[in-house]
């Protein structure tokens, strides 16, 4: 349970970091908080030849409001975002979901961007990004681009990030969830990965619901304003089947779908 050998580089700037990615491509791995990557290295699930450590990059350490979004830099830890005094006012849904991401000790190191880069199907932050309609800011030697949440996460631990790209920040639209928001998950203990996580926000009268832990990426359901109770129940039922689900040692696909049927109405009423 020790990692295979690799070279270690701690760049002093984003420019140096993207130079290294351009040079090494898929042989390189970014290390941010290391809370997922180090375990994968220890288990030898990944064997990069070079690690690029961005965890102490000052350039990426900002939380701020820019162009209508809360922008969180790639070296910002989950603990720092949680302690940000404006979080509740600017991104109320994130304030609900973030305390469920791992434990006190892992949030101290794990980054917000790292969780989205990692793209675990049951993770709270990718679900949040999808629900709020956020975007990911990517930078390579060739320039920078923004990718919408719906296009970013493509499947289990798979994203639209190209091997030469660094995620420099993620952006959560300001105020989505201020009209109403709810979040809940079922896990064996608080802090464990969710078996199923459900979040909802009210946006201009309609309700948006996101579900993690069932499909290979967060799924999204839009419920129009003013639908009947029966229509809503049917929409959730269809959504649960559409998500599918998988069996693992924690739960069967059927149990996961059942959690969606039971949790979604509760969370929707909290958000409505």
């Amino acid at each position: 349970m020790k990692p295979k050998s690799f070279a270690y580089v701690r760049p002093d700037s984003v420019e140096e970091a993207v130079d290294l990615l351009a040079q090494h491509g898929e042989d390189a791995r970014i290390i941010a908080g290391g809370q997922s990557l180090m375990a994968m290295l220890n288990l030898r699930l990944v064997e990069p030849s070079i690690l690029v450590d961005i965890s102490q990059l000052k350039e990426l350490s900002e939380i701020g409001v820019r162009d209508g979004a809360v922008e969180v830099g790639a070296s910002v830890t989950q603990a720092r975002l949680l302690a940000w005094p404006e979080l509740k006012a600017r991104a109320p849904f994130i304030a609900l979901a973030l305390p469920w991401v791992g434990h006190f000790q892992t949030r101290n190191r794990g980054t917000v961007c790292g969780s989205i880069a990692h793209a675990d199907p049951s993770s709270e932050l990718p679900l949040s990004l999808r629900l709020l309609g956020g975007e990911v800011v990517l930078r390579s030697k060739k320039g920078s681009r923004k990718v919408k949440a719906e296009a970013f996460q493509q499947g289990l631990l798979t994203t639209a990030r190209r091997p030469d790209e660094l995620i420099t920040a993620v952006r959560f639209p300001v105020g989505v969830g201020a009209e109403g928001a709810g979040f809940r998950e079922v896990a064996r203990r608080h802090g464990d990965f969710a078996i199923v996580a459900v979040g909802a926000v009210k946006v201009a009268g309609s309700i948006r619901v996101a579900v993690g832990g069932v499909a290979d990426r967060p799924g999204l359901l839009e419920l129009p304003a003013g639908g009947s109770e029966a229509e809503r129940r049917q929409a959730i039922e269809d959504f649960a089947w559409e998500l599918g689900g998988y069996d693992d040692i924690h739960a069967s696909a059927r149990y996961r779908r059942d959690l969606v049927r039971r949790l979604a109405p509760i969370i929707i009423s909290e958000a409505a």
Partner: protein
Amino acid sequence: MRRIERDEIVSVSFELNGKRAAGTAQPRTLLSDFLRQTLGATGTHVGCEHGVCGCCTVMIDGVACRSCLTLAVQVEGRRVETVESLAGDEDRLNALQRAFNKHHALQCGFCTPGILMSFTDYLGRNPKPSEDEVREVLGGHICRCTGYAGLVAAVLDAAREMRGETEPEGEPHAA
């Protein structure tokens, strides 16, 4: 830019429990192994090596985190505190350690160093935690012996003592 080649052995120096410490490591050397095997600081324990059990928890720059998910080369020039930093002169236990003793918050003691370091950080930030908050932080640790009740009681009691309050009425074991 700091660059260390694969298998290259470099000297890593940092502050360990208030004193300068140095040793040699490769890029792949885990901080937990570096502390235990290179520096002989065996107070930090190692269980799972994937971040789940919590017994390797130390503080880096005052923040509790897993030493098994940290590379030795990442602490260069930084400040690390381990369980060895807690007791004062002549091994006089501090308030948190005394409360663990009093409430039987340990049996085999394997998980203890990590839990002590987590709460050293946590109580510094939240001197008056609720029982739920204590349980939530404990969620980042696995203890196979105590059943957690003694741990919860010990942390709440230590927090009280550190705030300068006296013990409430009743059984010291009640959690």
